[in-house]
């Protein structure tokens, strides 16, 4: 028995388009690894610097951009200061957009409440450099302004990653979470939280179990959970219902496929 795969695509398209048009909403349960990131940010005192490394490109925007935006909103709501950077070149525009949106919402000022360091090539080397001498690695921000003259640096006395209590890495590959664990967290002692694409999520549960990650957001579900936690439903929350319906279609096809397999096998047995 064979079904043209294009029928499956049609069903998937229907399962996604209808809930998107009719804005079907579903309850989002919070998982422990996501709650832990929220709790860690909540535990920080106002004015503390949080580093957000965005190591992804527009291909992963659907899953990771909502995480970046939700984390930035949470940090600004808590009056934390944000130091954002990219280890991937193509993601710079998305990070700037997220900083602009969240910064405007909470009336935060560039250079005072947040700094965008931009992209620096080198992955692990950049992290080691930031751990030893932040201003040496990033003498200027993404707009070419000297970092040493910025109020965020002057007022906090930030010199390296050793002065940062929490780094959040939102990544779609390498350099990414592995690099931050290997070259950053285990060398300089800060807490590391991570967000990653769904494909990568299972790879990072061992780090969660060993305490090398304080929390983990996996894929769109992780982003939607974080939006729920900060009570700011946005793109990820809206996209969860078409996500659930498309999963139901896939589950139905998996069941159908297995039934067909069993029926075919029993037919063959009977014939022989």
């Amino acid at each position: 028995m064979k079904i043209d795969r294009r029928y499956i695509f049609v069903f998937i398209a229907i399962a996604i388009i209808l809930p998107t048009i009719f804005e079907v909403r579903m309850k989002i349960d919070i998982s422990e690894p996501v709650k832990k990131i929220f709790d860690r940010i909540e535990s920080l005192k106002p004015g503390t610097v949080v580093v957000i490394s965005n190591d992804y490109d527009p291909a992963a925007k659907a899953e990771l951009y909502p995480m970046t935006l939700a984390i930035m909103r949470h940090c600004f709501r808590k009056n934390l200061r944000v130091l954002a950077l990219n280890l991937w070149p193509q993601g710079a525009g998305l990070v700037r957009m997220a900083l602009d949106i969240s910064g405007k919402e909470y009336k935060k000022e560039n250079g005072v409440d947040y700094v965008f360091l931009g992209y620096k090539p080198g992955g692990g080397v950049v992290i080691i450099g930031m751990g030893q001498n932040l201003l040496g690695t990033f003498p200027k921000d993404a707009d070419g302004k000297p970092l040493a003259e910025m109020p965020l640096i002057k007022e906090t006395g930030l010199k390296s990653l050793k002065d940062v209590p929490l780094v959040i890495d939102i990544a779609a590959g390498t350099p990414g979470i592995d690099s931050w664990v290997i070259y950053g967290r285990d060398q300089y002692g800060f807490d590391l939280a991570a967000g990653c694409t769904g494909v990568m999520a299972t790879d990072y549960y061992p780090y969660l179990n060993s305490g090398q990650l304080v929390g983990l957001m996996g894929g769109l579900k992780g982003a939607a959970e974080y939006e729920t936690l900060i009570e700011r439903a946005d793109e990820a929350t809206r996209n969860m219902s078409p996500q659930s319906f498309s999963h139901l279609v896939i589950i139905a096809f998996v069941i159908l496929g297995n039934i067909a397999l069993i029926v075919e096998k029993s037919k063959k047995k009977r014939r022989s």
Partner: protein
Amino acid sequence: MAEVAEKKSSSGFLVLIVLLGLFALVNIYLFASGKLPSNFEGIGIMIAAGMSLAIYSFLYRDNPIYKLAEHIYIGMSVGYIVVYDYYNALKPNLLDKLFFPPPSETYELWLIIPLFLGALMFFRFSPKYAWVSRWSFAFIVGYGSGMAIPRGVKTSILMQIEATLRPINFTDASGAFNFDAISTLIAIVGILAVLIYFFFSLEHKGPLKVVSRVGVWFLMIAFGAQFGYTVMARMSLLIERVRFLLGKWLNIL
């Protein structure tokens, strides 16, 4: 046979023309009705919608429009990376410091070494002298291994072993049963069973066969979880595009 193929390709060409015409008509309507702004943003949305549809046309069958969109995407990505890397890495970190330092700073002549090693990489384009680029690769492999191996062993092996060997607490601080202990026990059984499955020095017979079988089950569950997450990831990408097409392009949402 050749006749059937020719018929198929001409009907495919016709479908292509009809779809392109439909796309053009929809955009004319969207611009005329003001649903798409008549500026660069509107044109950008139209191009993005066209590219998305062109890529998704592969779901029906491989076609020239898909190929065109694919090549444009690759070309744009490479072009963006080259320009971005030049202005954010090569120029400020190498060229400006080496050749055009600000009046208050001196020429950083030591940068000639990385410039020289970097330039050697271009010998990859010459089959005759490609071996010269190995000097640069030797440098990269040497520093890369030195940097990664000790840290990688500590982080990915020793700390993972430590986490596995930690004593299991069956009760929490209040004296109640700690349900996390069950997860830890399952993880330990899984690790041991999978390790035994990959232990090939002894034939998997008797108890070893049973344990390795358990290892296979753990692996299957792990693959299943990974597949589930992969499905979720791919659907997320599709949903984002559908939302873009219905919302920003067609203005239905």
